[in-house]
Structure formats: structure tokens, C-alpha cells
């Protein structure tokens, strides 16, 4: 039994020691951000985290034990690119952690252990602006001086980021692209709506005329015939395809379906008769400036157009090129032509970090970046695929856009990402005419 006439650490001595430690840390330490891990979901099979979030940060003074430089293996070139293996050991006061941080962590049900620093929590190291993950919390060095521990030694290594979410990372430009971000473009300026008029003969539609071709239509607009008669219907087409030359005895009639500016399909309504196959050529209306005329290869059989093969789908067809009477109707003394409106640009202003929802698909995503100049929003982790032409609305701001275009492949970790390069190079040499089981469905 030890000698009871000598003390081995009274509470006051322990307090003194604790205070001396804290004073030392405050004089020679630095302020770091302590970022606790909120464990939202765990995997009971592999004993791993599935979803972690990092929403809060607490400032606390800490002493950098390895003050001559980072520990660890330094910067390594691996088969997975450059891995930075810096490690640090930070010393923090047990009492200060309890006073400053624990009291809040204990209230958070997503925090596993609130009483002490958790392995898996992060430290934002201000000198190099790095995120370090705590790998081990050493609480027994020095070993029970005066019968108590006073510090935590946090052995940390650089964080391996796997698209963990949370307020902490939302504003971090270096990490925004990690994961799955898709640029969604909207119109920088509103489209122009097409207009038209009609002429009548014997109470029925005789001809339709385009007064304004309009612009920026994503697909062919709908045409409504107004007036005092009944039964007249008409369709609009964004491309006009005809057969030129070939001295036919009867002309062919062709209708093309355009979506997102490109020719998707061609229908031969009437193949015509008597075409000189050597001289007949396909004539296609011009696209908007910068567009590409589709490449069509016609097949004539005995002077009749029997097939058209689309070898190049072209681009830039966003204006009404043709109005076609489907049903002339009856009883009209006057008729009006109403063509559905062209898409518009943006209304309101988005807020970074808000969630956005697609009007028709219901897909939800987080808005991580927005460029009003170039007219795009960058959305992260979409729950579905937003449809071209649908309205996307911000949940907080109420801002809306109509989706005009999307760049799905140009996303994720631009520093280590050759996916797009392989896709582009592969397009020239690989024949995925059946299916590409790994590619984007087209």
C-alpha cells in the first residue's frame, strides 16, 4: 500500500496542470476548425459508413506536434493519380474540447461519441488549407501525470474524399466537381415565338403562311387553328425537306421530325413519281447560324423516292420552317393560326446550395454553381435525368429556367477524369450500333 502522507495528484494540482497545458496551447498553438462527422447511415454487413455529413465546425486551439513538416509519405504518383499522404499530429486540451465542443456534440443524435474527439472527424488545417481526418485519438500520452490525462493527441492523415456532403464542402470550389455534376444550360435570351396566318377556300383552310419563323424551339411547336369554323388542324415543322431536280411527273412529300435542333427522323408522306435518279437531290432548309445541315441519302426505286437514310443529323434547327394543313376543316369565314410560344430564359436568381426540382420529371438535385453570364447551372447528384424543355425551379429562390441543353459527361473531378476523352475518341473508332452497355443511352 502506498504512503498516504504523500499526495499523488490532488484535484487542485490537476486543475493547475490542466490550466498550464491550456495556456501553453494558447500561446504556441494555432486555431483549427474541428468538424465532427454526422453518421447518417451505416452498413450493417460490411461495417462501414454509407452516408456521412459534415455540417458544423468548431474553432479550437491546437498545437502542431510535427512542427518541422508533415509526417507521412509525401506526394506519391500512384496508378490512381497523385495521392498526397501528409499526416499531422495535433494536440488539444481535453478540458477545452469538453467545454467548447462536446456539449454541442452530445445534443446531436447523428454524432456517435460526443464526449471526446471521434476517429473519422475532420480538422481543417489553416496553414495549408487541407482537410485532415482523425485516424486515432491518443489520450494516454503523457501517461497519467498527477493521475489524469490532460490532452488528446489527434493523429490525422489527409482526408480521402468520397463525395461526402455537408455545409462545410458546399462552398469549396476544389471539391464541387467531385461526384457527379451536370451542367444544365438555359437560354441567355428568350426565344422568339413563331406566328402565322391562313387563307381560306370554300370555308376550309387553303394555305398556311409563316409570318415569323421564331427561334430557339426545342421541338416543333403545336399549331392551333382558331376562328368560326370547325375541325381544322395543322402541324409545324422545324425543317423543310424536299426533292430538288429530277424532272418528276409527281413531286415527293417529305416531313422531318426535329428535336433539340437535330433531325431525328424522316417520314416519306409521298414518294412521288418519275424522278431522274441521277439528277434528283435532297434539298434541306437552312439551320440557324452556326448550325449544320443534315446529311441525307435518298434511295429511288424506278423513279420513286422509297427511303431516306440519315447519315448526319445536323444541328441548329430551332425555327419553324413549314406549316402543314392536316385537316382543312369546314365552315370558316375567318381563321387564325396560333403557334405555341418559344422557350424563355431565366426568371429570378438561384441560390448556391439550394435544391432544384424538374417540373415534369420530378428529378431533384443540388445547385452547386451558377453562371448567369454563360447561362448555365451546375447541378450535383441529380436523382433523375432532367428532360430538355422542362422547367427547373429552385426550392428556396423560386427562380426558374427552361432546360435547353445539358453536358452530362463533362463532370466530376476534372483533375482525374479522362472519361470524356475516351468517349470522344471512342466515337470515331468503336461501333456500338447494337448497344453500348456501359455508355449513355442514346
Amino acid at each position, binding site marked *: 500500500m502506498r504512503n498516504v502522507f504523500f499526495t499523488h495528484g490532488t484535484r487542485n494540482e490537476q486543475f493547475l496542470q490542466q490550466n498550464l497545458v491550456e495556456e501553453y496551447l494558447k500561446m504556441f498553438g494555432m486555431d483549427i476548425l474541428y468538424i465532427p462527422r454526422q453518421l447518417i447511415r451505416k452498413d450493417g454487413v460490411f461495417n462501414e459508413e*454509407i452516408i456521412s455529413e459534415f455540417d458544423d465546425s468548431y474553432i479550437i486551439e491546437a498545437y502542431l506536434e510535427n512542427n518541422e513538416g508533415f509526417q507521412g509519405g509525401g506526394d506519391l504518383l500512384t*496508378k*490512381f*493519380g497523385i495521392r*498526397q*499522404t501528409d499526416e499531422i499530429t495535433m494536440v488539444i486540451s481535453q478540458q477545452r474540447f469538453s467545454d467548447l465542443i462536446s456539449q454541442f456534440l452530445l445534443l446531436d443524435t447523428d454524432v456517435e461519441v460526443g464526449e471526446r474527439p471521434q476517429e473519422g472527424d475532420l480538422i481543417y488545417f489553416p496553414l495549408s488549407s487541407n482537410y485532415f481526418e482523425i485516424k486515432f485519438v491518443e489520450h494516454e500520452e503523457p501517461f497519467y501525470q498527477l493521475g489524469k490525462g490532460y490532452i488528446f493527441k489527434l493523429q490525422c492523415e489527409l482526408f480521402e474524399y468520397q463525395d461526402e456532403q455537408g455545409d462545410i464542402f458546399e462552398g469549396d470550389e476544389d471539391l464541387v466537381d467531385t461526384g457527379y455534376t451536370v451542367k444544365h444550360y438555359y437560354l441567355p435570351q428568350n426565344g422568339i415565338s413563331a406566328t402565322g396566318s391562313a387563307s381560306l377556300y370554300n370555308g376550309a383552310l387553303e394555305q398556311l403562311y409563316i409570318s415569323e419563323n421564331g427561334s430557339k424551339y426545342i421541338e416543333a411547336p403545336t399549331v392551333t387553328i382558331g376562328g368560326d369554323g370547325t375541325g381544322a388542324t395543322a402541324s409545324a415543322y422545324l425543317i423543310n425537306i424536299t426533292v430538288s431536280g429530277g424532272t418528276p411527273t409527281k413531286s415527293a412529300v417529305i416531313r422531318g421530325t426535329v428535336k433539340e435542333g437535330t433531325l431525328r427522323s424522316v417520314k416519306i408522306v409521298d414518294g412521288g413519281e418519275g424522278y431522274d435518279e*441521277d*439528277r434528283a437531290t435532297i434539298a434541306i432548309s437552312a439551320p440557324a447560324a452556326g448550325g449544320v445541315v443534315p446529311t441525307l441519302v435518298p434511295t429511288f426505286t424506278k*423513279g420513286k423516292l422509297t427511303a431516306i437514310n440519315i447519315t448526319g443529323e445536323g444541328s441548329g434547327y430551332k425555327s419553324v420552317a413549314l406549316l402543314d394543313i392536316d385537316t382543312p376543316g369546314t365552315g370558316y369565314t375567318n381563321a387564325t393560326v396560333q403557334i405555341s410560344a418559344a422557350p424563355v430564359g431565366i426568371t429570378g436568381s438561384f441560390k448556391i446550395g439550394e435544391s432544384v426540382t424538374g417540373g415534369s420529371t420530378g428529378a431533384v438535385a443540388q445547385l452547386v454553381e451558377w453562371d448567369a453570364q454563360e447561362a448555365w447551372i451546375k447541378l450535383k447528384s441529380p436523382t433523375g435525368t432532367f428532360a430538355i424543355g422542362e422547367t427547373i425551379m429552385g426550392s428556396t429562390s423560386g427562380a426558374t429556367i427552361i432546360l435547353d441543353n445539358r453536358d452530362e459527361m463533362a463532370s466530376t473531378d476534372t483533375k482525374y477524369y479522362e472519361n470524356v476523352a*475516351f468517349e470522344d475518341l471512342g466515337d470515331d473508332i468503336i461501333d456500338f450500333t447494337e448497344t453500348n452497355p456501359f455508355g449513355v443511352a442514346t
Partner: protein
Amino acid sequence: MLGTYTYNQIIRKCVIGFGTLFNDIEVRKNNADGSTYSRMKVPLAYGSRQKFLARLEQQADLNQKVAITLPRLSFEMTGVSYDASRKLSAITLNLKADTTNAVKKQYAPVPYNVDFELNIISKTNDDAIEIVEQILPYFQPSYNMTIKLVDAMEEFRDVPVVLNSVNYTDDYEGSMDDRKLTLFTLQFTAKTYIFGPVGTSGPIKKAKVDYHTEVDLTAPRRVSYQVTPAAVSDKNKDATTELAEKITKTTLVIEVLDSTDIPLKTYIEIGNEVMYVKSKPATNKLGVRRAQKNTSAAEAVAGTPVDLINAADDALLDSSDDFGFNEMTSFYG
């Protein structure tokens, strides 16, 4: 040296093709209610790279905020070896029509296997197997990838990519501050062919046979027979004249604007129909035999061009055209 310069970039194309297979893999995390929490597109890159470029591209500002972003895919070519089991006759010649009135030719390729290693790194086991399970079902044990190996020949070949093995590493034991690493390594073999140079030859447009009556080949020939291809339809759209009035399927005397340049006993093409001019019964009128050279009699409107089929069309024949023959037999004393 061995021969002409050639670089068909076949191994490079196999690398690109192999990379394309795995460039659109996703990892998804779900909430407890099954709804999607987040989606990640798994980045892919070729493993080997120049160190200075890696440093400049990935650490342009000298520092990374995190050690690495995960998960990642990396692949690299690990070997190229000859495959004797797929050897073809070396003298087999592939020919392909050339647009410039010639044929391209290339000898049979040499079969080679290109080995690849695909590595998958992830922070968690579940994400790693999520990636692996998006890959394995397509390799039974091979996946046929159709690659245009030789651009000049438009040579598309099915290149089977065979999955040879799947290795799994999960280092979790040891000190608490050791890194845990979940790694899958998949070994593949792409069975490709290495092609040589592409040559060109013009189509044969004249064949000639000389007949001798004596064994002595220096003696004069007695008969010479020569054939050249003859156009069966108009090629040059010469529009020598036009129809002055419409014709029906049974019209046998047609009226043209000017028949001066239409010789007798020649073929003409109106629309898609070839006719034989057998007479000129009146000024600007042609007596014709309809539906020649396997064409059908058809109506045509006034103003339809009348094309002459002559030697100028013969000269424009290329290897993909149907053609007849012009024959010439010469006798020598």
C-alpha cells in the same frame, strides 16, 4: 528496311476502346427509404502518365485539399503477345474499293493479344462491389467490342475482351492509423490484330489477248482480242438536249429540242430509262427502242434532259459500277 512507313494506331485504338467500356459507371448512395441520396460518376484514367504532367495537372497549386478523391478507376496495358491460335494465311489479300477509282489492298493481319489491368479503388467495400457488379455481367467471359482497326480500309473487327481474373484486396488489419485500402484488380485480354500498310491499285480497265500460231513468241501475232468496260447508263449528265414534249411509256418516236448531236445507233438515257436510237424520221425526232439495258419504260415530262451514253461515260466508270463490254478483235496478216 522492311517496307513502307505504316502506323495504324491499332494498339492505341484498343486502349481507347477498352477505356470507353468503363467510362460511364456510377456509384449511388440511397437513403434508408430507398430514395437516391447521391450519385457519383466514377472517374477513369489511364494509369501511366508523365510525372511532371501529373504534378502540373493534378497539383497545379502545389497542394491538394484532400489526399485523393474516391472511388477511382485506373487501367493500363500490361503486355502484348502473339496469339498463334488465330494465325491466318499471310498471303491473303483484303481489297476494298477506293473512291478515287482504285482499290485499296492490305495483307492479312497478325493476331496479337493485348493485356489490360483495370484497378478499382474505393473507400468502402460496398462502393467497390457496386462498381464491379456493373462490369462483370457483360463479360461471359468475353465482351465483343467492334473497333475500326484500320481507318483507310474501314476495317471493323470484333475484338473480344476476355476477363481473365478478378482479385480483391481489403487491407484493414494493423495499427489504427494505417490506411485502409479496398482494391479490385481485374485482368483482361483484348484479342486484336495488327495490320500492315495499305496499298492502292487502279481497277483493270483493259484486257488484251494475243494469239500466236507459232511457238516462237517473237513471231508476229495473228489475232488480237481486246475488251474494255462500257457504260450501261449515263455518268456525266451531259444533257445533250431535252425532251420537247412529254412521252408516255409507249412513245416510240420522241421529239427533242435539237437532235444534231445525237448519233444514230447510240444509246441515250432519259430519266432512268435507257433507249437505243435507231432512226431519225424527221428533224428533231428520234425513233427509239425503249427500255434498254435492263431499264423500264417510264413517262417523262417535257424538259427532261436527254443524256448520251458514249465513250465519255465509259471513262467515268469506277469499280462499283455495273458495266458492259466494248470488244475489239484485230487480225494480222
